[in-house]
């Protein structure tokens, strides 16, 4: 390539003399020796150096991506119902899938770092100058192609992280004047994100971009060989050949890159070993978030770390609206790239070359600084203690955050006021960071749960893993409860540290483990039934149930200890939660439950108010205890607490969640009511290994 005249072949160095007949035959037919010769015996002015390894490590990284990418391709399925699912399968079920995906994922990041090093070395060494200008431009195109592959690859698992990051990236592309919206629609594959977003991103990631990259790489290497290696001046050592010294340095660098990649993948395994915990291969390498869900907020959304500086840069233009985003996401990065394209021309002058170096270092330093700022903002709450802001919080609380009042409290002292606003901003930053960290934790929980659900014996339904998550009481229950129930009801373990505090703020019963043994025991506890965890903050505070428990139920002549126990177990049995309460053995004591049922039905006891079995007590005065606490019963009371079975006349503020008001919609759909009821009852899928209470999956 470099040597059209064939001189290097005649140099005699490394030439295979004689050789086997098969080698001779092959050489006469292909001329491979000359090829190997020209590939290995490239002249390196001044001998081998470590600073020349970056280009080779990039080629190595690309080859690694091709090898791992092709096999990932053999198991990946690009559609909205199969992308997450197939990646889950690769990561958690295929042998070695975690390692394959891990290498692909981490090497992609290593490639970005190597790119930066390569560009920096080329600029600092002035390797872009004549006659190598075109090769520098080819290199910049290669850089954009690599970044394009990183961007498109991020979406392919179709998890929350990739989905939201891609939405942002494609929306920013839509800001380009005139062609933006059409361009966005073309990339997304339509007006909305779905199958065609994935097929297009996949085609880009595994087809268009790498194919283009290969073409440009061939051109890049051809020109590199044509012009020879640009030696860093001054040359102090004699020239040497590419083989073996420079190849050795390159190979050592490649090995180091691979060692770092493997280190990143295996670090958590090492930590697990040191902590004596079991290693889950699926948790190594690349993470997989919960399946993409456009209806679920994802506050943990961040681009991959190497794009974090752009993300942070956009914040510089906060308050500028779309113009700011256009400037930050398109104009400034575009101008930067434009200057980089001009570097070979600017570099003709000494001053220009110096400018190029300063510019490159400034860009990298700026990107580093922006990345550090982004990380600092996100993780601020980790290294600052909330108590540091106690006085600021107190001041804001006591003045309702009114600036004038605060100013007055500070004695109209300008300096104190400035110090205060400064710390108030920090408190605000702390709160934002805290919210981000909570979101990250939530995302990690959601991801773990989705993986747990996907690993059920029944596998993933053909509607996809999202349908599993959406119909999972454990995933949806807490969110629905927080949105619709928590404004009145508490849901906290009564033994928790802050339980009393939470109860005091609630205005309805605590529903933690509702229907289970401990909840029922609390209901029959004279000290607690009228307390904030039960009826204390409701209209029933002085109702018949509270007075019954406090008076009749404590009368030991009327209610023996055994009878009380029988009633507790009969109620828990009615809720079908004996197993969940860890009282499996009680089931054998059917006699107790039967006795309890008789006591409940007895019209001189519970049955005097509550309809139960065939005790002929009329519906309407006190809740129907048939199937009390069961899923059907809970669905019923959440749907309509004013139904004859529950509180037709004495309902205390509870909305009729499943009944549409005139011409309106139900506050909660039937499915949502079912999910929240199942969650309250604790009936959700648990993997066999972590199923101490042996609660079966709800159908």
């Amino acid at each position, binding site marked *: 390539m470099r040597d059209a005249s064939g001189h290097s072949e005649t140099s005699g160095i490394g030439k295979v003399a004689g050789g086997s007949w098969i080698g001779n035959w092959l050489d006469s037919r292909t001329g491979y020796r000359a090829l190997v010769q020209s590939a290995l015996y490239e002249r390196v002015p001044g001998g081998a150096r470590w600073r020349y390894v970056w280009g080779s490590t990039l080629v190595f990284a690309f080859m*690694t991506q091709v090898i791992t990418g092709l096999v990932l391709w053999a198991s990946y399925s690009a559609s909205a119902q199969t992308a997450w699912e197939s990646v889950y399968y690769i990561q958690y079920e295929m042998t070695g899938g975690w390692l394959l995906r891990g290498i692909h994922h981490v090497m992609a990041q290593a490639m970005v770092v190597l790119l930066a090093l390569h560009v920096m070395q080329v600029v600092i060494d002035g390797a872009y100058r004549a006659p190598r200008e075109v090769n520098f431009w080819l290199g910049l195109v290669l850089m954009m192609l690599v970044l394009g592959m990183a961007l498109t690859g991020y979406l392919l698992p179709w998890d929350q992280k990739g989905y939201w990051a891609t939405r942002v990236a494609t929306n920013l592309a839509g800001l380009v004047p005139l062609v933006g919206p059409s361009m966005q629609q073309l990339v997304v594959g339509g007006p909305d994100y779905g199958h065609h977003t994935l097929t297009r991103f996949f085609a880009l990631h595994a087809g268009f971009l790498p194919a283009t990259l290969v073409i440009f790489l061939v051109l890049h290497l051809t020109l590199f060989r044509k012009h020879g290696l640009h030696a860093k001046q001054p040359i102090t050592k004699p020239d040497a050949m590419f083989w073996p010294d420079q190849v050795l340095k390159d190979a050592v660098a490649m090995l180091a890159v691979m060692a770092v990649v*493997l280190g990143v993948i295996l670090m958590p395994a090492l930590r697990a070993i040191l902590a004596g915990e079991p290693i889950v291969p699926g948790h190594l390498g690349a993470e997989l978030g919960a399946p993409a869900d456009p209806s679920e907020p994802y506050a943990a959304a961040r681009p991959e770390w190497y794009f974090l500086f752009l993300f942070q840069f956009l914040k510089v233009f906060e308050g500028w609206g779309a113009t700011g985003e256009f400037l930050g996401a398109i104009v400034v990065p575009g101008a930067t790239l434009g200057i980089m394209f001009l570097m070979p021309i600017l570099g003709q002058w000494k001053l220009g070359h110096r400018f190029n170096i300063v510019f490159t270092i400034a860009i990298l330093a700026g990107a580093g600084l922006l990345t550090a700022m982004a990380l600092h903002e996100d993780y601020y709450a980790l290294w600052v203690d909330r108590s540091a802001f106690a006085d600021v919080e107190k001041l804001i609380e006591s003045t309702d955050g009114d600036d004038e009042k605060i100013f007055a409290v500070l004695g109209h002292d300008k300096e104190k006021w400035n110090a205060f606003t400064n710390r108030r901003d920090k408190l605000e930053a702390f709160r934002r960071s805290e919210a981000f960290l909570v979101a990250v934790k939530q995302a990690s929980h959601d991801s773990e749960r989705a993986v747990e659900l996907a690993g*059920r014996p029944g596998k993933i339904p053909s509607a996809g893993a999202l349908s599993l998550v959406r119909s999972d009481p454990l995933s949806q229950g807490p969110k629905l409860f927080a949105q619709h129930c928590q404004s009145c009801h508490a849901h906290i373990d009564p033994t928790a540290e802050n339980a009393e505090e939470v109860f005091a703020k609630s205005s309805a019963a605590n529903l933690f483990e509702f229907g289970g043994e401990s909840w029922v025991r609390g209901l029959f506890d004279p000290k607690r039934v009228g307390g904030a965890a039960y009826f204390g903050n409701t209209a029933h505070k002085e109702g018949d149930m509270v007075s019954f428990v406090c008076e009749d139920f404590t009368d030991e002549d009327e209610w023996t200890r055994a009878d009380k126990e029988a009633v507790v177990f009969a109620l828990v049995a009615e809720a079908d939660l004996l197993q969940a309460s860890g009282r499996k053995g009680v089931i054998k004591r059917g006699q107790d439950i039967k006795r309890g049922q008789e006591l409940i039905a007895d019209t001189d006891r519970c049955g005097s108010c509550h309809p139960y079995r065939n005790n002929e007590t009329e519906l309407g005065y006190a809740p129907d205890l048939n199937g009390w606490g069961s899923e059907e019963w809970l669905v019923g009371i959440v749907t309509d607490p004013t139904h004859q079975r529950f509180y037709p006349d004495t309902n205390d503020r509870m909305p009729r969640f499943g009944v549409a008001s005139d011409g309106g919609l139900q506050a909660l759909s039937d499915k949502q009511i079912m999910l929240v009821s199942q969650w309250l009852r604790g009936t959700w899928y648990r993997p066999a290994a972590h199923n101490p209470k042996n609660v079966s999956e709800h159908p």
Partner: protein
Amino acid sequence: MPDVTGGQIVTEQLGEEPPVQETRRRSFLSGALAVLCGGLATLPPVVAAVWAFLDPLQRSSGAATFLPLTDLNNVPADGQPRQFPVIADRVDAWTGFQAEPIGAVYVKRDEGADRVEVLSATCPHAGCFVELDKAAGCFRCPCHNSSFTLDGGIVAPSPSPRSMDSLECQVSKAGAVSVKWQNFYTGIEDKVARK
């Protein structure tokens, strides 16, 4: 361009270096080390790729079980085979399907018989779906024209190396017909079940 004389210069310069033998030994060592390092660096992605690529070899369709097929009343005792789908839960990599048709069989009941014969509809030659040719009173494979009698026996000359594959079946007292669903290797004389 230094290229034209490049080879010469290097030769000369290297000639000034320490004795040739030592240079050669050093070159050999460097070369060997370079190959070693390069090989080691390439090993992880290659191992991971091969490891994951061979994953399908570890998968099996599981032990054959008896699957409910139909009721005896639905199989007239006239010696005419009838086609029934085999319904079962199926796992395809990550997707679980419930009660899905996973294949088809021909069920035949002779006059007055209280038991049935079940033939797999998969041609033992190359795995096509064997069709029942009612007019000709035989089974015929549309792919390579293998023909079989209504009992599944081979009609010579035939590309198929063996008769149609019969499947074990059971008829419960209540008349429920179930079949032991299996796939067999095609193209060989012996009937060998796939695992």
